[in-house]
């Protein structure tokens, strides 16, 4: 064997190959950048969900009217039997008919039943539901509404429509749990950032920008904490959830207050 021509005979001078090495470093750097860089500020895809302007006139739902519906009818205020505790509400000193608007969002144009007439002020007292019961009823309604529309057009929904539909659900749920303090005023603003997990549970709530009124800020945080979770988000495809609902912002800015 000619040892001089074997590749193992000669000591090999280590030689740094410039271009591949550079490329490797660059790729690793880019990888690090892309993984850590906060894309949120640069993507123009911002969805701001405002409350739907068209709202069905709601009728004060008497607890006695709540019966289980045999079929999945168009969304009416008739939740499943196990979802609602039909307890007599706490007797208030003066039972006045205070219509609580049960607004239903319309994520897609769908045929809904004709709006029910609003109650007249001289009505006899109806059993009033506590806020908890009312909120639970509304959530059940919304869940069913969203589920139905979902099943009807699941695969066809574009990403934006889906996001809007679930965002409206989150919005309405939080509205039902938000009780403002007496010192709240129209136009006050509190911005919260909340983090969700795919089960719909809220894992963190932080105040990003306060209103200056601590009671008002606290009421916003309490609203999210009382809502607790949005289990309907479990029906979202994982990709949609990650894209839009993993971390989102809630801007509390009342427009319906007395002052």
């Amino acid at each position, binding site marked *: 064997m000619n040892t001089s021509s074997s590749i193992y005979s000669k000591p090999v001078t280590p030689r740094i190959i410039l271009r591949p090495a550079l490329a490797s470093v660059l790729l690793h750097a880019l990888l690090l950048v892309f993984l850590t860089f906060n894309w949120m500020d640069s993507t123009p895809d911002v969805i701001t969900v405002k409350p739907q302007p068209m709202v069905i006139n709601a009728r004060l739902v008497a607890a006695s009217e709540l019966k289980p519906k045999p079929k999945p009818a168009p969304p009416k205020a008739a939740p499943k039997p196990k979802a609602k505790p039909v307890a007599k509400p706490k007797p208030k000193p003066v039972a006045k008919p205070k219509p609580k608007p049960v607004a239903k969002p319309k994520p*897609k*144009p*769908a*045929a809904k039943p004709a709006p029910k007439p609003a109650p007249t002020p001289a009505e006899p007292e109806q059993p009033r539901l506590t806020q908890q019961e009312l909120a639970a009823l509304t959530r059940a309604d919304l869940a069913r509404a969203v589920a139905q529309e979902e099943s*009807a057009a699941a*695969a*066809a929904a574009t990403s934006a429509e889906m996001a809007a539909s679930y965002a409206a659900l989150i919005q309405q749920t939080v509205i039902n749990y938000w009780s403002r303090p007496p010192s709240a005023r129209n136009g006050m603003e509190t911005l919260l950032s909340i983090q969700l997990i795919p089960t719909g549970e809220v894992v963190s709530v932080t105040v990003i920008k306060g209103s200056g009124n601590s009671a008002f800020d606290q009421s916003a945080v309490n609203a999210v904490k009382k809502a607790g979770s949005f289990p309907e988000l479990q029906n979202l495809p994982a990709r949609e959830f990650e894209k839009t609902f993993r971390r989102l912002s809630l801007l509390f800015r009342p427009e319906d207050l007395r002052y």
Partner: protein
Amino acid sequence: MVTLSERQIARYNLFKPALRNVPMKHVSVAGKLVTLLLSAAFLVACSGSSTKEDEEAAAAAAAAAAAAKAAQEAAAAASASSASASAADAETQRLMETAAAYGNVFYFAYDSSNLTPEAITALDAHIAALNTNNNSVRLEGHTDERGTREYNLALGERRSNTVRDYMILNGITAYRIESISYGEERPIAYGSGETNWAQNRRVELVVVSN
């Protein structure tokens, strides 16, 4: 290897037909329903107003018929008694009784201060009677309860002024006429509903003898 973009395109193509169909279906059903509801509401609204007008027309026609009948009877009675008095006095008497027979209340349509033909006929009789003497008259304008009180004061005055202007145009001197409005403050018929309201939309003529 299939690049990401190709995979995306494949998925989009799979769902495109469904995407096209489903939203369309929802819109057409909603559109039909909305159209139906709107046309129903439109028909109801239209039928509602025509009923009101019918009621008003019926009330006015009934009042006119009653007045005409009373006038006929009065005229018959007047012509019987005139034979025993002098011609001039008899004429005066006849005019006064004709005027009285028409009544001293003139009715108006909702939100209007225009004189109805029945009102004009009655007014002519009163003007004829007033031309035989030197009495003054007080015209009191009224409205029904709908609307605000101050605006109704102005509306009542508009009605009594319309009657006043007609009388001046037909020879009664202005200083003999006083025009006052009570707005909705002095109704004849209490309560709501067109039968009550129609009775309250009026001008009353009160003769003040000098």
